[in-house]
């Protein structure tokens, strides 16, 4: 079902972007982990007491600090931008430009194209988060060997973040497969994930905006539940399910639609 020629070409055309984002994500993780300092956090905690930001610094463990920074902001927004750009270029941009005609003028099935391109996006994300996780893990061992960190929780944060990105990539890839114009694909494929991100961010800043949690998929990546040992498996299950359903839907819509090539 995966076409090696198309996969190689996609890899060649997209590897630079992937490298840049993987590098940035990994560096952010390394920096975030290495700069953690118990005393500093306590100091800042005192400084922002009584402001809306107090929530960010209320907890003082390394993982809870990461949960409210890297796993809430940097580690979310950078992969989202990567997904938006890549998902659009994998299908919609090629239909919009017309270059898809060349793939389809050979005995290549539409389903093969979708499966190949989707595989690329999923594999790119898996490898990106593996590198980020391993780098984070090593940094923990090197710079924070004296701090008590629950490695299982750290792993779960990364798996949860990956599952969230898998579901988001499903959204972007679905609209890339559905729309014949890049601008439409981007309007939904970028608009929805960015809206989810903003809703999640706003809902965590102020209590009055907490209702926004119910309008964002990102709330299913519940870092508090992971760190406090609550049951979060159902949320992971839903994220995985959303991703799978959207990728299958991508295949179905692309097989059935008219292509202006």
């Amino acid at each position, binding site marked *: 079902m995966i*076409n090696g*020629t*198309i996969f190689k*070409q996609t890899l*060649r*055309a997209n590897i630079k972007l992937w490298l840049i984002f993987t590098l940035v994500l990994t560096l952010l993780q390394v920096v975030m982990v290495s700069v953690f300092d118990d005393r500093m956090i306590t100091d800042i905690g005192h400084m922002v007491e009584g402001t809306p930001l107090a929530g960010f610094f209320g907890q003082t463990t390394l993982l809870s600090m990461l949960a409210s920074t890297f796993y809430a902001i940097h580690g979310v927004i950078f992969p989202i931008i990567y997904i938006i750009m890549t998902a659009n*270029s994998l299908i919609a941009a*090629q239909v919009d*430009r*017309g*270059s898809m*005609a*060349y*793939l*389809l*003028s*050979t*005995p*290549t*099935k*539409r389903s*093969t194209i979708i499966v190949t391109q989707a595989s690329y996006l999923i594999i790119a994300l898996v490898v990106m988060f593996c590198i980020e996780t391993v780098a984070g893990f090593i940094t923990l061992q090197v710079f924070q060997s004296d701090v008590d960190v629950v490695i299982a929780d750290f792993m779960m944060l990364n798996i949860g973040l990956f599952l969230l990105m898998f579901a988001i990539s499903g959204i972007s890839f679905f609209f890339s497969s559905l729309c014949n114009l890049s601008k439409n694909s981007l309007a939904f494929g970028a608009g929805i994930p960015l809206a989810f991100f903003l809703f999640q961010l706003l809902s965590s800043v102020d209590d009055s905006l907490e209702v926004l949690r119910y309008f964002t998929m990102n709330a299913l990546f519940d870092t508090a539940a992971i760190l406090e040992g609550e049951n979060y498996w159902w949320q992971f299950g839903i994220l995985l399910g959303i991703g799978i359903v959207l990728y299958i839907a991508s295949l179905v819509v692309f097989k*059935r639609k*008219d*292509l*202006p*090539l």
Partner: protein
Amino acid sequence: MAIIELQNVTKDYGNNRGIFTINLSIKPGEAFGFIGTNGAGKTTTIRHLMGFLKPHTGTVKINNLDAWKNAAEIKQSVGYIPGEIAFPDVSTGWNFIHQQAALLQLTDLSYANELVNRLQLDPSANIKRMSKGMKQKTAIVVALMADLPILILDEPTTGLDPLMRAEFIQIIKEEKAKGKTIFMSSHMFEEIEETCDTVAMIKDGKIHTITPISTITSNKSQQFMIEFSNEQDCTRFMQEKFHSIRMNLTTASVTVQNHTLNEFLAILSMYPFNNLTEQKHTLQEYFYQLYAGGPSHD
């Protein structure tokens, strides 16, 4: 029997745009020309052949397979030049040719090399910096290199200079001699006239006529335009036994049967005239007549 067959194919985009009850039947080995103005529905029809579009009604069949359902299977025997050339994100022309060859499972690139030489293409150039003509040549090489039995060409000579167009027409003639079925759209009359057996004209999404080229470019009679030295001679010439139409005071258009050509020249030699030109019976003329009026038959 037909290798390409469209039956009552309609794709209605509303506002009279689209194609309507298209019926075409193309025999194996036939070169089929498809002519129409911009927006007449040529590319829409071709997109149906390629399985990019699903007809609202009717069926499109190639090799007796449904063009929509069996699109991938059909491509094993179809070479295609798209109307708009947009290449994938690859670096050089060679990279693109090799990639398409891999997708076609073609390992022998000797014909591709021959075409590259004949079209004077330099595929080592960066594909994004190629001129329109270079891109078109690359598309031609890719469509023809696998030596597939059916060729679907959407305005294949766009952007080619006159020398290259002549070379391309020569290549198409050779492909035809190999027994290939060719479906070629164009708005260039000469290339259709030179290469095709049959021509269909499409206007506003409807097929107007399907005619053998031989009946259009019939050579049983010829038409001449004569400009006489003065009015009296012209008037006098109108009395001769030829079928003449007076165009203006000194000019007449004459239709001469081939077997009376000698006689015609003998009579004409007695008249003082300034200019004699042969009027070719062209597809173009036929096309203009059609577009000027005449009901469509659908």
